[in-house]
Structures are given as C-alpha cells and as structure tokens.
C-alpha cells in the first residue's frame, strides 16, 4: 500500500536503477485476492446498460477499437480495406464515429499509412518480435524503429515474460525503457501477456513495471496465447493505472485485447472503467479495445438502436 502514498512520489523514478529496489517495490504492492477481484468484476458485469446509455457506450466503444489484424496471411489489400473501414465503419451512416486505431504488423504499416494519412485514426504496429518477444534486443529495437519510420504512431511491444517470471525485473524494465526510447514520439503500449502471468499479483506487478519504465499504455494480451483479456485482469490493471497516477501524477492508458467479441462484453469493460478509474479514462486516448470482430457487432447493435430492427452480419463488411 505504501506504493500509493504521495511521499513515495519522488522516489519512483529511481527504482529502475536497482534490481533490488525494483523487486522490493513490486513485491511490496498490495496483494490481489483472486476470488474477491473476480467477484467484483462479475458484479460490475451485472450492470444493465440500456437505451441512451447503451447508445453512448456503443459509440464510445467504436472510437476505442484498435481494429486489428495480425495474421501471417495479411496482405496489403486486406489491411487497406481494414484501414478504410476504420475511417468509416458504417458507410451507410455518416454519424458513425471512426475507430481509435488500426493495428497491424510492421510490414503492413506503409499500406495502412497511405489510407489513414491526414485522418485522426492512429496507426499502431506490434513490434519487438511480436508475439513471442524471442529475439535479441537490438533486433527488437530495430523492429520498433522501422515501424515508427514507416508511419506508426503507436507501438505495441511485448514484455519478456520469461525474464519477468524468473524475477529479472531490471531486464524487463531496461527493455521497455529502450523500446520507449526507440519509439521517439510514438506512444508505447506495453503488452503484459497476462494469460501467461498466472496470478493477479503478477498482473499488478507487471502493470507497475510497465508504467515505471515509461509505457504510455498497458495492454493485456497479444491475442496469440489461449487466455487473452478478461474482466478481472483488466480490473487489476485499471486499479494499477489509478494508483500509479495517484502516486506519480502521470496517467497511463489500458488496452484489453483479444476475446472481446461482442457489444455486451465491450459495455462490461466500459462499466468497469467508469466505476474503477472514472471518466478521465473514458476516452480513446486512455482506453482501447484490441479487437477485430467486435466492431461488426457494435455496428449491428448501433443499427438496432437507431432503426429498432435487428441487423445481420451480411450487412457489414467482414474485414
């Protein structure tokens, strides 16, 4: 609990200098009771969001989508189509907002950049030998620089889970610092890969580590391991960004990614943001959904709200 005291504020920047200091700090964070955290998440999931609130939530969720494709089979044509959809998700309805960002592999960045140029939609690229992170540091940094040079203004990096789980916190920290430096002006999203962290205590520690090292966002998952974003994991991460801001004054964003398939799920996340960190985070600048199929469901639900008629998947493009 000492982590959140204001007196600790000035000390936090020094933590990265010492493995011992980092360990002491991270292991001094308050524990997370699994059952309690999961119950709180489930309870927030019972909120009933209807009518005007639902309309508001759907538009907000659309604006928060990082429209993502991260497949070996991605082609320039596919990512261009995706970028076009990001700009105008529902061509039939000009009131429909654009999404938050398009997220692709570094090789696809130039093709997306062409489409998005001049728009308010951000261009995110995974980097640092996504999704495993199993590459030498200089390769990861080169990967990052290349993506930024090609036009990405957001970089989604993966942390070294092996080092984290082995307790080599300084190694993880230094990699994030180096990647942040390689990003230049681009925003850095630090992927914790919570599905591999085994406990919520680890999620909380990894969240703090990512923030201490300079991450602009902390993100749950690559989407490439069996367990992706969950509500309780996101709850723990939201608590971390809340406490981090209280301790340092710096606000960090949160991005659950993977497994968020429909409007109902997305609204549960928004409720959780609302009741954990509040309105300051209810913006695409501070909260994103890493998703692909979610957008179509949001669009269908949006159409239902405006027309009163249930829509179907045939009326929205698949990419």
């Amino acid at each position, binding site marked *: 609990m000492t982590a959140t005291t204001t007196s600790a504020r000035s000390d936090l920047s020094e933590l990265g200098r010492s493995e011992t200091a980092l360990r002491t700090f991270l292991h001094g964070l308050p*524990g997370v009771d699994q059952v309690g955290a999961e119950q709180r998440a489930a309870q927030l999931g019972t909120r009933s969001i209807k009518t005007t609130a639902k309309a508001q939530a759907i538009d907000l969720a659309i604006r928060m989508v990082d429209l993502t494709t991260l497949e070996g089979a991605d082609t320039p044509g596919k990512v261009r189509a995706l970028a076009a959809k990001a700009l105008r998700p529902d061509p039939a309805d000009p009131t429909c907002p654009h999404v938050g960002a398009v997220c692709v592999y570094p090789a696809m960045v130039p093709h997306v950049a062409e489409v998005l140029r001049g728009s308010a939609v951000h261009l995110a690229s995974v980097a640092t030998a996504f999704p495993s992170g199993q590459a030498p540091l200089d390769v990861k940094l080169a990967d990052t620089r290349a993506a930024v040079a090609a036009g990405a203004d957001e970089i989604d990096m993966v942390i070294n889970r092996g080092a984290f789980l082995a307790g080599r916190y300084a190694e993880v920290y230094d990699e994030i610092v180096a990647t942040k430096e390689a990003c230049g002006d681009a925003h850095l999203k630090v992927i914790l890969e919570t599905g591999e962290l085994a406990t919520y205590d680890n999620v909380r520690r990894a969240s703090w580590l990512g923030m201490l090292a300079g991450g602009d966002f902390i993100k749950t998952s690559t989407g490439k391991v069996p367990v992706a974003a969950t509500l309780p994991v996101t709850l723990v991460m939201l608590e971390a960004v809340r406490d981090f801001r209280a301790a340092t004054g710096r606000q960090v964003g949160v991005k659950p990614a993977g497994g968020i398939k429909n409007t109902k799920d997305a609204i549960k996340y928004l409720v959780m943001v609302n009741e954990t960190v509040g309105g300051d985070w209810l913006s695409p600048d501070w909260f994103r959904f890493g998703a692909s199929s979610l957008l179509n469901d949001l669009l269908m639900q949006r159409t239902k709200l405006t027309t009163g008629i249930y829509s179907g998947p045939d009326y929205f493009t698949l990419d």
Partner: protein
Amino acid sequence: MMFEYAPAPESRAIVDIRSSYGLFIDGRFVDGENLDKTVNPATEEVLAEVTWAGAQDVDRAVRAARKAYDKVWGPMPGRDRAKYLYRIARLIQERSRELAVLESLDNGKPIRESRDVDLPLVAAHFFYYAGWADKLPYAGFGADPRPLGVAAQVIPWNFPLLMLAWKVAPALAAGNTVVLKPAETTPLTALLFAEICQQADLPAGVVNIVTGAGDTGRALVEHPGVDKVAFTGSTEVGKAIARSVAGTGKKVTLELGGKAANIVYDDAPVDQAVEGIVNGIFFNQGHVCCAGSRLLVQENVAEQVLDALKRRMALLRVGDPLDKNTDVGAINSAAQLARIRELSDAGAAEGAQRWSPPCELPERGFWFAPTIFTGVTQAHRVAREEIFGPVLSVLTFRTPAEAVEKANNTPYGLSAGIWTDKGSRILWTADRLRAGVVWANTFNKFDPTSPFGGYKESGYGREGGRHGLEGYLNV
C-alpha cells in the same frame, strides 16, 4: 467524459399483489378483523392491506399446527417430507423473479440483491434441508432424534423471505410444524410463500403464517401450545423472549443483534478489502445483523484505506430499488429511518466526523445516504450500538492484540472480518475473535451448509448446516 446509466427498471408486472390478505391457517387464507397497510418504503405507496392477527387467530394457527403435527407431518416418513421440501425449493426457483420483485417492493432492497443474493439462497436453503429430512439419524444427534412439535417462529424485516427459509426449512425437515410471523413491514413474500405451500400441496396446517406486529409475536411465543421458539431480531426483544419462556421448557434459538468489527491489517489486499468494507456495511442498506459496522483499520494504512473507501462510496448508486443498477435501496420504514438518524446525530454530537458522498436522495420514501464516521472511539454510541443502517464507524488500531481487544469489546458477538495477506495472522486473529462467523478476506457470505449465529448477546443456537437441525430436534 461522463457515462450516465439510463434507468433500467425491473418490471413489476410479474407480481400480482392482492388488495388485502388474510392469515394463512390450516392450509387456507382466512380473513381477520384488524387490517393494516404495508407500504413500499421507496415511495410510501400502499401495496396491500394485511391482517394483524389477534390472540385468538394465533391460537387457531397453533392448534392447526398441532393437529398437522399429530396427524400428518409427525407420522410422515422423512423421505416424503423431503419431497415436499424439494417441491417447495423448485417452486421458489421457478417463481424467483416474482418473489424478488415483491421482496424489493415491500422491503426496499435493491433488485440486484433480492435477485442475486436473497432468492438463490432461499431456494438453496430449502434444497439443502430437504435432503436432511430422511437422514436425521446420520446428523450426529443419536440414532433416532425426534422433532419437538410446533415451532413458533418470528422473523425480521431485513431479509423477509430468506429468514423465513432459515426458519421453515430446518423445522419442517426435522418433522416439526410451524406458525411463522413475518415482520409487520414486510409480510408480502411470506404470504406469497403460503401460496407456494398450497401449490406444493403441502398438507394443511404444516405451515401457518400469521401476520401482525409485536403483540402478535408475543401471543405466538407465549402460547402454551408451542414447543419451540425461534426468533431473529433485536437483542432487546430476544431478551424479553428468553424471559417469557423461562420455566416453560420451550426450546429456544435466538439470532439477534451485532456490531461486527471488520479488521483491516496493513498488508491487506486493499482493493478487495475496500469492496469487503462496502459490502459489509452497505449491503442491504446496512440492515444486516452481521454487518461490518465497525471498521478497525491499522493506523499506518488508515489514510489510504479511507481515501479508497470514500472514492468507492462515491460510486454507490442510491435510489429506486427496482432499478437493476441500484446498489443501495430504501430504508425499510419511517421508524428505522428515525433510529438511524438519531444515532447518526448522536455520533456527530459526540464529536465524530461524519462523511457521505454527494448523493441525491428521492423526495418520497425513506432514504439515508451511505455514511461513515471517522475519529470514532470505543466510547461513542455509533461504535457501541447497533445502528442497522448504512452507517460505518471507523476506528484505528496499532497492534494485532489491540485490534482483537477492540473487536471483542462489545456485548455482541455475531460476526467479524479480517483482511490480511498473511495466513498465520488470519488464524491467530480468528482464534481470538468472540464471534460466530468470521469472514477472512471476504465478508457477508452465506450458505445453507454453513452454520450462522452468535456468541454472547447476539443470541444462541445456530442456523444453517447440520448444526441448524439441532434447534428443531429433542437433543
């Protein structure tokens, strides 16, 4: 940006409330003479007229119960009693939405709680005790434990149907028949339960429901024809009952008041602890005998915990009980509201600092904003008396020994909470707390298999689990 939740009201069309109700005696509703109104505490709207049973009505109910005990329920094989109870459990599950809405209307509790907590527990309780009916020789009370006869049961208004379940299910499973008096402000779900008994074809007289206030309860408890008295309510009334049954040989179980300490150590999982504190005192508007109404927080984290608690309290949604997003509903009655106000005013007058989040309360109905008092000492009335409302007293402690000493420094002993990540400290603390239920790193959890009941002036006997049978058997 602001994310405002639009109203999400649960429909009340599912409930068909009659304009007036008689008493449920010997399997049917019989009209009485004295009628009184039961109101929706959230709106003060009259829901129905209900009969207030007099001594003669109570006598008829006890006789009906006696006849049913002698002729039908007593001689019936346990396996058949079990099947009636299973039937009732299923009917409750099938009609749970209807019961939940009615409970929220009559009691003022949020539909989220009546739907997600009360009703599932009610059904589970009947389901659990149904299974005991034909297994009593294995319950650890000898080879052939016998029922007592007619049980007089008086229940409170805070969990009307759940308290009915806690009383009726073990009594019937053990082979007793019952006369139950619900609280005068919340009679409606008990009357709907009477309809469920009819629907289950439960033999006439096995369950009798007499509505009314204190006089009705007294007539029931003091009736010479009852063999067993089970009461849940205030310690004051519990003592009066204990006095009145002295010398009669009636078996008594009492589940009374509390002033539970919720102890937060400096290594607590703080986010869950804050949830536990909130759940501990604001669940059911604090109308909970085991509510964690005294927060004992270790002084080196008191400021952080309080900040987090206040932040969390500001999110509580107070209002229409039938809105699915309501967290805190209406105070059950004008009388209870007056009591909460009186004690809260005393807290402020005695020098404790009062705080409530900004909170718009409806104009009609009985409402009280979630409130905490800081700077409270053991001597303050808000630290000693049961408020039975959404009011938390915050005290600090320095050492574990001091926490335990303060926690136990009360005539009550119903429940307690412990929050720490250190296992041995949990067990050390739990060992020393004089309380019947200790929640460690959780709070206000209930289960039909888990015995519930207090030490000291919180009453005697246990409800729930194998232990809960003991109060209904001649052991």
